[in-house]
C-alpha cells in the first residue's frame, strides 16, 4: 500500500495502537479514490483517535470534544465540493457527541464518519467508553462496568442511516474498501471500526476481536432493514464485519431548497436589489 499524497507525520500514539492501521487505510482509501489533499476535510474532536487529522496531509478541523459532527456537516453544507470525513473515537462520537450522532444521521449530510471504536477512553487513560463491555474494570469503574454498552450500528440503522458498516483493523483490505464505499456513498455513512487499545483495554485485545470477527459475504442482504437490524444485534461470540445496512436516500443537499440549485453555498452572492426590496417591505 502507498499513500504518499497524504504523507505521514510523526504521531503521538502508543506503539501497536490500532490507530496506525486506520490512518494507513484512510490515506490509501483517499489516494485510491484520487482525492487531492486540498479537497479533503478531515474533522475530529478530542481524543487519541481525534488526533488523526493532525497526521494526514489534508484540510483539518480539530474542534471541540464531541462536536466534530455539527462542524463537519456545516462545512459540507458551506462547500459541497469538499470530501468531508469525520475521523474520531468512540467517546467523541457516541459519548460527548451522542446527541449529534443521532441528529446528524437524521440530517443526512453527505459525509463519512469513521469511528475508532476501542471500547475504552485512551487519552484520559483508561475509563469506560459508551461501548465498553459489562464487567470491564477500570480506574473509575472499579467494580466493573455495569452500564449497558451502546450498540452504535443498531442505533444508526434505527435512526435512519443509509450506510452503516463495521470494520476491524485486523482486516485491512476490507477496511479500505469500506472506507472508500462510505466516502463515495451519497449521504451520512458510518463505519464503526474495531481496534485494540494496547495500553488500556486488556479485555478487548487484538486476539479477542480476531477470534470473533467474520466478514459478511454476498449472501447477506444488506438492503433489507429487518435483516440488518437483526444482524446489528450480533456482537458477542461472533461479530459481523462489512456493510450491515445500505439504502439510497436523498441527502441534505438534495432536499434543501437553496442547496439543491447546485451552486456551492459559499459561492453565492447576496443580491443588493433584493435586500433593498426586503427593506422596502417594512415601509
Amino acid at each position, binding site marked *: 500500500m502507498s499513500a504518499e499524497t497524504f504523507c505521514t507525520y510523526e504521531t503521538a500514539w502508543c506503539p501497536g495502537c490500532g490507530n496506525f492501521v486506520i490512518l494507513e487505510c484512510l490515506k490509501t482509501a483517499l489516494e485510491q479514490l484520487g482525492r487531492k*489533499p486540498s479537497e479533503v476535510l478531515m474533522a475530529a474532536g478530542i481524543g487519541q483517535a481525534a488526533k488523526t487529522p*493532525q497526521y494526514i496531509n489534508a484540510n*483539518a478541523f480539530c474542534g471541540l470534544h464531541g462536536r466534530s459532527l*455539527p462542524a463537519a456537516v456545516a*462545512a459540507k*453544507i458551506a462547500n459541497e465540493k469538499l470530501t468531508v470525513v469525520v475521523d474520531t473515537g468512540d467517546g467523541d462520537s457516541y459519548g460527548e457527541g451522542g*446527541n449529534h450522532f443521532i*441528529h446528524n444521521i437524521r440530517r443526512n449530510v453527505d459525509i463519512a464518519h469513521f469511528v475508532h471504536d476501542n471500547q475504552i477512553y485512551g487519552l484520559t487513560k483508561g475509563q469506560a467508553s459508551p461501548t465498553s463491555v459489562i464487567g470491564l474494570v477500570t480506574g473509575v469503574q472499579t467494580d466493573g462496568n455495569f452500564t449497558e454498552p451502546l450498540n452504535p450500528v443498531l442505533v444508526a440503522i434505527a435512526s435512519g442511516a443509509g450506510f452503516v458498516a463495521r470494520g476491524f483493523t485486523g482486516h485491512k483490505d476490507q477496511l479500505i474498501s469500506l472506507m472508500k464505499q462510505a466516502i463515495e456513498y451519497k449521504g451520512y455513512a458510518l463505519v464503526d471500526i474495531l481496534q485494540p487499545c494496547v495500553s488500556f483495554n486488556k479485555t478487548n485485545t487484538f486476539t479477542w476481536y480476531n477470534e470473533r470477527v467474520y466478514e459478511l459475504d454476498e449472501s447477506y442482504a444488506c438492503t433489507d432493514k429487518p435483516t440488518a437490524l437483526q444482524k446489528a444485534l450480533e456482537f458477542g461470540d461472533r461479530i459481523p464485519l462489512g456493510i450491515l445496512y445500505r439504502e439510497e436516500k436523498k441527502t441534505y443537499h438534495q432536499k434543501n431548497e437553496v442547496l439543491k440549485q447546485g451552486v456551492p453555498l459559499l459561492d453565492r452572492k447576496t443580491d443588493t436589489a433584493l435586500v433593498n426590496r*426586503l*427593506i422596502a417591505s417594512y415601509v
Partner: protein
Amino acid sequence: MLMYNLLFGGAAGQGIETTVAILEKRLKRSGYNVFTVRDFMSRVRGGHNFSLIRFGTEPVYSHSSHVDCIVALDDETILLHRDQLKEDGLILCDSKLSASDPRLIKFDMEGMAKKLGNPRVSGIIAVGILLKLFGETPDGMEDILREFIKQQYLEINLKALQEGYQIARQHYRHLEGKYADWMLISGSKAVALGAVAAGLRFYSAYPMSPSTTIMETLASMADNTGIVVEQAEDEIAAINMAIGASYAGARAMTGTSGGGFSLMVEALGLSGMAEIPLVVIDVQRPGPVTGLPTRTEQSDLKFVISASQGEFPRMVIALRNPSDAFYQTMRAFQIAEKYQIPVILLSDQYLGDASSTVEPFDPERIHVSEPTAEIETEGEYLRYRYSESGISPRLIPGKTSQPVLIDSDEHDERGWITESAEVRTQMMDKRMRKIDGLKQELLEPDFIGSDHFDTLLLGWGSAWGPIAQAVQLLNEDRQGQYAALVFGDIYPLPQKLLTEKASKAKRIINVEQNATGQLAGLIREETGIACTGSILKYDGRQISGEEIAERIRKEGLK
C-alpha cells in the same frame, strides 16, 4: 408634543399579535411615528398579553403608562389597565364583556363577525372601529391585510374592516406626520435584515424565546436570498455548525437567549482560539436559568464579556434600537471577518419584539469584506502566521491548493498541536494583539441631552430610548441639567467620551435593567469611574422614560 397611546390587551390565542401588527402598520403609513411595546406571558392560550402602541408626529423613544384608549378583548384587560386610562380616555370592547365604566364603548363585534361568517374577524372589526375613532380612513388596508392574511380570507376581512369603520364615530383628530415612507420594524427583524445585507449564508440555532423571531425571519427569506437556515439539535450544535460553516467559507451566525448562550460558551472559545469569524446574538431575557422566558432584562453583560475558559479577543456590541440592530449586525460581520474573532451582539426581549419607526436602512453604509482570496505564498501556507496586527491571512479550505488546518489545541503557525512554551506565548500574544486593533474600531457611546449637564446618566443597549426620553422629560422640568451616555460598543469599553463627560458630572447615575449594575461595575473596573447612584429594574418589565424620570425625582439620587 401631541401623541396617542393605545393599549391592546387580551388573552393569548385571541390574535392580538396580528391585529396589532396590522394596526401599527396602517398608522405608520398614515404618517405617524409609531412605537409598539409587546408584553407577553409564556403561554399559547389564555393569560394576559398586551401591546402598547404609541404614535405621534415626533419620534417616540419609549412607552408611556398614561393611556388614551384601551382595546380590551377580555375583562381582565379592563381590570388590569383601567387605572392607566386618562380621564377622557376610551375603552373599546365587545358587548359580551361584563365590565362597566363610563368610558366604555361597547360594540357587538363578536356578533358581527359571526354574521359575516367567521368569528375570527372580530379583531379586524376592532381595527376598522379604531381607524374611524382616530380619524383615519380604510384606504390602503387591502395591501396591508394581504401581508398578514391568507388570500382566501382577504375578502371577509375587508368586509369586517368596512363594517367596523361604519359603526364608529371619529373621536380623535388625525395628526399629520412625516413618517409614511419610513420603516416600521422590530429589533429582531432588523437584526435578520442586517445579517442578510452583510451576506449571511448560514444561520443555525435552536428555538428559544425571545430569539426565535430572528431565525423565523431569516427562514422566511432564506430561499430567495440563498441562505441555509438550520434548526440544530441543541445550542452546542448550533454554534459548532456556525463555526464549521464559517471555517469553510460561508458567512455564519447563530442566535439564542441566555440559557442557550450558556451552552455555547465552550465553542465561543473555539472561535477565538481557532480564529474563525463568528457572530452570535444573545437576545436577553431574565435569568437565571429559565427565569421569565418571555420578558426582558439586561443581565448577561458580565457573562458574555467573560464567557468561556482562558483568554482570547472578542467584541461585544449592545444594540440600542432597530437602526443599530441593522447596522451593527452588519458591522459585527465585518469585525468578525477582519479580526477572525467572535463578535457578540446583545439584544433583549424589549428591543427584539418592540417595533419602532426608523429611516429606511441603507445596506451600502457598511462594508463587509470577503475572506482573503487565494494568496500566492512562498512555500508553505501558515494559517496562524505571526503578524504585527495579530491577524493572519485566512484561506478557505478547498479554495486553495494548500491545506487549511485549524485547531482547538494550542498550535504553531501551521496549525499543528504544540506544547512548546515559546510558541504558546507567541501565539497568545499574536491573538491578544488583535485587541489593539479592535480598540481603534470602537464607537463612542451616544451622548444625549444638555451640554451644561450636572447629572450624567449611563446606560447601554435597549435602555437608549427610555433614557433619551427621561433626559428630555427631566430637562423640561428645569430643576437641573441632565445628559446621558448610552453604550452600543461595550466590550472592549470605549473610554474617551466617558472619561471626558464623567469629569464634568456632579452626579453619575447608571440606569440598567438588572439587579447588580453590571455596566457600572464594568466601568469602575476599566476606568475607576464610580457611579454615585443607580436606577435598577429587574422585574422583567421594561422601564420607561417616565419611570426613570420619576425615580430620579423621587429618590433624589445623589
